[in-house]
């Protein structure tokens, strides 16, 4: 890695002030950031890393007044193994459990997981080989390149990368609120397509807590990846269905987690059964186009089929 400074923050306010400096970035678990720094993927190399792990009281899971509160620095493995989360917020526990590998889950935090950068292989290529839109460059290389893992719902700001988080769709389906040092943000509104970030956060804004109202119904999460572990999702899906309400979210299919609103409408108040779930799956991918095969690029139409299937199966898992 290139040289940088490292500062332990003792409070959120201090961390926020430090983050306001030029070249400062926050290091939570570090499992996303260090990979990016080692491979020198960005055009601007950070000059100082701000460590919030020295701030006390950011690591907890508790239920208060019908709301689950998870500290931003809570490890994914702790979330995956927490009995309350497992029984009442199943989609989140399962999403945390299916993230990356055990070692990563023991270091990676929920705050980091929802703020991670995209995994487009052009964006991530070492030594900034492709100076793409998400680095302030002039073009999206995936558009005319190999986009087998890319968006099936088109581009955002001309970028066709996908949001790779496993926990993000679970938080959307569970109607979570992301609490920062500045404001409360509904999960629906938390993600964005930035340079190079993937959230609406300001530079000096820090996620401190995730709040989830206790769901009225069951929730579930299903992930499709090439291998059973380590891999990022090809497609994942989370759903929470109570009698009258259905919240269904797909991820890794678009630059932002995608609320499958047509599927939600189809399922609201409907019986959870094979036929309804199948119809909801079809509805969820209405408007998905994907990229066709082109030479050595197989395209990503297969993801539409997988997304449809995952929506169906996630709904059925909420039975």
């Amino acid at each position: 890695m290139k040289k940088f400074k490292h500062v332990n923050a003792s409070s959120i306010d201090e961390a926020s002030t430090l983050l306001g400096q030029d070249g400062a970035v926050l290091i939570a678990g570090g499992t996303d950031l260090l990979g990016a720094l080692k491979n020198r993927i960005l055009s601007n190399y950070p000059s100082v890393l701000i460590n919030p792990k020295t701030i006390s009281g950011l690591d907890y899971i508790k239920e208060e007044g019908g709301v689950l509160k998870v500290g931003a620095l809570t490890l994914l493995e702790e979330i995956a193994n927490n009995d309350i989360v497992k029984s009442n917020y199943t989609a989140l526990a399962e999403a945390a459990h299916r993230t990356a590998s055990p070692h990563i889950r023991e270091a990676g935090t929920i705050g980091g997981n929802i703020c991670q950068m995209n995994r487009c292989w052009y964006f991530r290529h070492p030594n900034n080989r492709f100076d793409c839109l998400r680095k302030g460059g002039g073009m999206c290389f995936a558009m005319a390149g190999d986009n087998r893992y890319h968006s099936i719902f088109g581009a955002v700001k001309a970028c066709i990368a996908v949001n790779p988080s496993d926990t993000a769709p679970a938080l959307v389906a569970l109607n979570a609120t992301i609490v920062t040092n500045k404001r409360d943000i509904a999960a629906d509104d938390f993600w964005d397509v930035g340079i190079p970030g993937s959230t609406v956060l300001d530079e000096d804004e820090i996620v401190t807590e995730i709040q989830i109202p206790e769901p009225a119904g069951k929730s579930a999460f299903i992930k499709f990846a090439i291998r059973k572990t380590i891999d990022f999702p090809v497609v994942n899906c989370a759903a929470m269905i109570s009698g009258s309400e259905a919240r269904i979210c797909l991820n890794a299919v678009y630059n932002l987690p995608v609320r499958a609103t047509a599927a939600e409408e189809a399922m609201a108040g409907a019986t959870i059964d094979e036929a309804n779930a199948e119809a909801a799956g079809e509805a969820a991918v209405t408007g998905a186009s994907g990229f066709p095969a082109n030479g050595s690029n197989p395209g990503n139409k297969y993801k539409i089929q997988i997304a449809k299937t995952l929506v169906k199966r996630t709904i059925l898992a909420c039975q």
Partner: protein
Amino acid sequence: MTEEYTVIGKRGYRHAEGLPKATGKATFNRDIKLPQMLYGKMLIHPNAHSKIKSIDISKAEALPGVVSILKYDDAELQGIRPLFGQADAYSVQTDEYYFWGEECNIAVCAESEEICDEALSLIQIEWEELPFLLSAEEALKADAPLVIRNPNIKNEHPEMLPPWVNTTLEGNYLFALEFAWGDVEQGYQDADVIVEENLSYEYLEFAPAECDSVVVDIRDNDEVVFYIQEQSGVAIQQTFRSFFPQLPMSKCRIEKHYSGGTYGLRHNNFHPRPTLFALLFAQKTRKPIKILTDRKGDFYYHDGKIESCKLKIGVKNDGKITALSTDSLIGGGLGTTVGARFWSKDTIIPNFFLHEDQLAVSKAPVTAFRCELNNGAYHFSKVFDLAANAVGMDPTLIVNANTRNAPSLLECIKSGKEIIDWDSKWHSSGSKQLSNGKYHGLGFTWTEEWDGHHWSASGGVRICSDGSVLILGNITDFGVMPMTSVKIMCAETLGVRFEDVHFPPQQDTTCFLWEGMGGSCGLHTNSMVIKAAAEKAKKLLLERAVQPRQALYQVLPPAFPDLTPDDLDVKDSMVFEKSNPENKMSIPDILVWRENPCPAAWIGPLDIQVCVSQGETETNHEIHDASIPSTYYQAHFAEVEVDSETGFVEVTKIVNVNDIGQAIYPEGIETQQVGGTLMAWGRALTEEPVYDPMTGVLLNCNLLDYKYSTMRDCGTIIPKYLEVGEKGEHDGSGAYGNVGIGEDTATVVPAVILNAVNNALGTNINSLPVTPTKILKALGKI
């Protein structure tokens, strides 16, 4: 003759390489750290084909901690000859590079790895981008730009190429080859069904655990010590002798420590630049230097790609194949070929025609990756599966009509079918949906077992006077557990206990080198050497046993005074009289070992030491003769469950049956079967280098995006080895009747997984890896 062995083929011997690895004490090449050592890195070519227009290294040179920078036009590099390899040439003076990831002739030497990285980032280069080609089909076109490196070099060393290779072709041709017998047109007329298909198989990347590194240290006596990750030390000696005529092989010492996965020839022919630059830096600085390759720079070796292989099979309703013609286009090099070997050795197909074109493309050079028969085995498997499907036969039965039904083959098939319960599970394609909604499929394939052939090797055995035995010879431990096997063979032939046999410390490589040109057939070759050496040593031991024994100040009577060597034998490290086993003496007593001898009065070594070189050992070149039928076979069976909605393949069970002639190290055989099978899982389903079509850059140059199997990806694997051979005897061509195992399952199993997928879905996918896209497309869902 079947021999009864006491050590060979028995279970329970300790894995000789296990402890240093489990305790983390095994020193791999990347772990080497010498006093005063400097670090080096090569500049990685960022394009698919380009030439340096201008270069400025001044900023890099000015970086504190940078010791030296060498590049193609420096005086130190002039006069060094290009290295011939794979009909290609690596010049160290060139400023033109032919694939993304190529190590350019620009290297930095600095006090730390981080400084090297920083210095490389400060080198400013203006590249002139040149046309590149990513497919052999494009490379074949008449108006294709030339992407072949030094096209004339292939004709400079005709003696290094097989006689059947046509290298006189122009353009991007590396070579073409043709084999034929019979009359295929007549064969098609005799057929009931004609099958025409087009196969493809992706490149396979080595992606070894340990990325390449090289350390070069010039000692005070001008001996050059290379610490390398390579199967063959001799090859490196030869390589550097050819680079530097003033560096005799005898002054060039190779230290091969533990090697984190090799699986094929790597360094010498395909990757000479890091070693070369390390040597130049060592000469310049007089300090040891370690050049490190990182992961993105280590996607440097792969197996060749079958871009297309047009098959035409004529088959009769009884399953007899009357004609086969194939026309392949391969992006590659000599390391891999579809070839005719299996067809001529293993089948009785009467009419055959094979044509193969191999073309240079703008990708890393092709070499044999566990092993050079990947493409051939895939080709072979697919033809039989397609033919069986075409006439609605059980694929395990079509074999009978098309081979000489060697006992080994029949036994392998019978055994595997029993283990997987084939007869009760077999069903026609696409006909069995399980209660979980997935489709169940069975697959079968077979080929010959690699008999193994005999490369050059030498080595020796020393019976120390305390009774311990030292094997003289360095062996590269790259994962096939060679030390345990060789110790077993040595113990058997000498008659000593397994635990009395030792290898010299890894560092001590001045004596002899084993393994010749590569990892293939290592056990086979070493069996020849160790058997000859151990027999020679045992003969000397038994001679000593009947001679007066020289002690310090007196001569002791012979251990066995009235006997001849022929009356004696050795077992459990004791020499005994064959007709009276109670009459015995330990080796230390025969060799007059004393706990506390007086060093000043030492009368010289009492040890027994012998060595053998190539030529003293039995040679078997039959393997090279494609007309001699194979005698050893293997059969593999797969069971899968396929999700027809997502295209996800769950491999639930694989059964491997390999006839290995004579087992040497049973646990070692099984771990090779299982490990190879899991490697094959990736080859069948997930492994695929992805190049950017616009720039020719390898996109998945990391272990996240280049995907091979994890702990939980594959179901049960049942390894089974047989010892059948031609006459039910241990008659394999190795010294103990053994044949090879290390390469087989990784090479043959990919096709059996594909066959099972097609059986599950009723599809006709002929392309590896079989991805969700290919499956969903074959099902008409996308």
